[in-house]
């Protein structure tokens, strides 16, 4: 709970400062926003251990644990990085860049899932 309050405080305070300096120095304002976002994400690293334990438990229960969990985690990381980067680009009023980042993220996730899909299509072919 304390981590959440700190993240909220940093977020609100940084947004206020960013608004104040945006009129005079938009580049500095963008930098403050990006640094605040990175600080908030780093502040959540205390939860990574809990998430890691959850993933280890899931791996131990699932027979194909490592085979499945890695691509799913990759998709999760791809989604978070894409979302974060696209949002920063939109904050900098660069809509085209944001779209390009989102498209790149989609292709990356598709590439991660492709081997699974091909394997399943072979299975379906075998049934028919």
């Amino acid at each position, binding site marked *: 709970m304390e981590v959440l309050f700190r993240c909220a405080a940093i977020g609100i305070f940084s947004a206020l400062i960013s608004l104040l300096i945006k009129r005079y120095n938009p580049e500095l304002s963008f930098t403050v926003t990006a640094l605040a976002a990175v600080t908030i994400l780093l502040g959540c690293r205390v939860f990574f251990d809990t998430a890691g334990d959850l993933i280890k438990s899931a791996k131990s229960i699932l027979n194909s644990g490592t085979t499945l969990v890695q691509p799913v985690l990759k998709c999760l990381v791809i989604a978070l990085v894409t979302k974060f980067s696209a949002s920063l680009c939109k904050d900098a009023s660069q809509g085209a860049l944001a779209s390009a980042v989102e498209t790149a*993220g989609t292709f990356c*996730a598709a590439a991660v899932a492709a081997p699974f*899909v091909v394997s399943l299509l072979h299975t379906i072919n075998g049934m028919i």
Partner: protein
Amino acid sequence: MRKLILILLLIPWFVTPAYADFPYEQAAEEFGTGAMEQGLTEGERSVTGSLQLDGRYDVDGALHRLVKALIENVKSEIRRNIRFSAELIVLVFLCALVVIGTEGHKAGQFAEICCVCTAAGILVGSFDSIVSQTTEAMYRLSDYSKAALPVVFTAAAASGAVSSAGVRFAAASFAMDVLMSLSQSLIIPCIFAYLAIVLANSLFPNQLLAAVGKFIKWTATTLMTGMTLAFTAYIQITGLVSSSVDAAAVKTTRTVLSGVLPVVGGILSDASAAVLSAAGVVRSCAGAFGLIVVCVICVGPFAMLSVKTLLFKMVSRIADSVQIDRLSGLLSGVGNAIAMLLGLLGSCGIMLFIALTAGMKAVSG
């Protein structure tokens, strides 16, 4: 005078006892009832008990043991599938966490596709073994029908139901052969096609695929239901017509016997009634034993298929509750495919049941 007294004194020494007995052993040998107990495993024999042909077959005891065997099978299937169901539930929750974490981003959908592919890999591997166990049970039922039906219908014919036994035996044998051919050539391929469509639909949700899957499911279900209903109707109709013919024939024969032959006609008529009665008892005992054996053969696969169907439906509901539509659709579809296998085995068992019951109830007057 002395000779007469001597003869009268010696006569009791030459008197031998004689009493009436039903010819069960001879009847059983003639009808080949031994074939009904062959091919059963030790475990199955412990449930069915041994076939007693003099009316002393313990049906209540066999039913009691059958219910216990069913409960034990269900318990062992639940224990065997606990880890399997835990895997599926963990998969569902992992997928749900990732989808929530990605908040509708396309990468989240690809994570869901990865989970669907993993679930499909787990399910397809186990589905092959389920189909082979079901097919094996059906072959056993078919083989047992070839051993049991001749015994029951021969006894039915010997007890006076000549026409109806012949007609019903022909219908039952034909129906079992048709069902086995249909299941191998059409119904099981339909079930595999349905499963393939379900897998494809879970990867790429599509209304056309869903409609084709529903049609295939409807076709397989209608075929099984139609065959069972047609067989039941045919047995009933042939029974109505031929039973009255057999009853009239038996009465006429007994009347002729007792009327035509002046002294021994009545004795012959009563003796023939004893033979018919013995054949009737053998028919009833063999038929009851056959019914129990059919249940015993089906109890293992039934327990396995029922537990797996319920398991998949339960996990599908869990996936539905966390709004993982792809996984929910996949698990529900696999549950439906297993339910169709259960229906197929049930059709085979019910048809054999009806055939044996028809043999037991063949009216002889």
